[in-house]
């Protein structure tokens, strides 16, 4: 549907976007490596879709374990989105994950030219 100005937008309940497909990720808040939580497998699919988990590095069905592959994906995602790199599913990281976005991947063949791919040039002072 197309709405031609803000005032023509009906109340939320009449819009398609009742809940984004990814809002279920919010229940994973606080998860970190070693945890097991229902829904981590879906988050791994999300990270694979956007190139943070390469298709080659996983078996077909993801598990709900917060393993090193997922921690590495979270670290890279946090660098790409200017978030504090904690490797954990903290609130600011999840807030960014659930935002609507472009379907194109951030990483292609495991490499990214967003922040995570930039060689940080540091100068000795």
């Amino acid at each position, binding site marked *: 549907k197309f709405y031609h100005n803000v005032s023509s937008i009906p109340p939320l309940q009449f819009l*398609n*976007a009742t809940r984004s497909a990814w809002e279920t990720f919010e229940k994973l808040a606080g998860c970190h490596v070693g945890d097991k939580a229902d829904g981590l497998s879906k988050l791994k699919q999300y990270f694979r879709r956007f190139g943070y988990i390469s298709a080659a590095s996983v078996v077909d069905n993801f598990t709900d374990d917060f393993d090193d592959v997922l921690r590495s994906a979270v670290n890279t995602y946090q660098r*790409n989105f200017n978030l504090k790199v904690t490797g954990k599913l903290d609130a600011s990281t999840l807030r*960014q994950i659930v*935002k609507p976005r472009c*379907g194109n991947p951030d990483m292609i063949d495991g490499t990214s*030219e967003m922040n995570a791919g930039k060689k940080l040039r540091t100068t000795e002072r």
Partner: protein
Amino acid sequence: YSFFPGKPRWPKRKRDLRYAFAPQNNLTDDVKEVFARAFARWANVTPLNFTRSESLIGVDIVIGFFVGDHGDGEPFDGAMGTLAHASSPPTGMFHLDGDEDWLISDGEISRRILPVTSVVDLESVAVHEIGHLLGLGHSSVEDAIMFPAISGGDRKVELAKDDIEGIQHLYGGNPNGDGKTNSGAESGVDW
């Protein structure tokens, strides 16, 4: 800014690109006008020109709204989530999710944050995806058009310095003088 692997771009002989809409969408002129504005933002800072064609024959870019699995191996996922995707040059494929509620905004407003988070500003997504069609990848610069995510209701349509530097790395500037990059403050922000 970033590029696709191998830095694909439209060949030198292709500076006048033609685009058309999937006929089955039956889009109205005011929706097509949104895309014309979005193309003009990139034309403003490059030697590229974009012309709309009513026929799909011989066009460089095809734009369509599709729902769910639409045959390109990248199914859409219902409202919100993924909004659209586009291919790298010279493929010219631009798909938008037909399950979204799209907002057609007044072209004069360049930045806006709306409390209504369940509609998506069509021009903001179009400007971003055209960046991909021309060869840009995603950027970590939050103000950049090529930043991958946008909140429902937000509007961001002006190219940032990062976007302009990236696209001019591929095609050079507009021989008739570059468009100016306005910071939000200059172009006015409609909160």
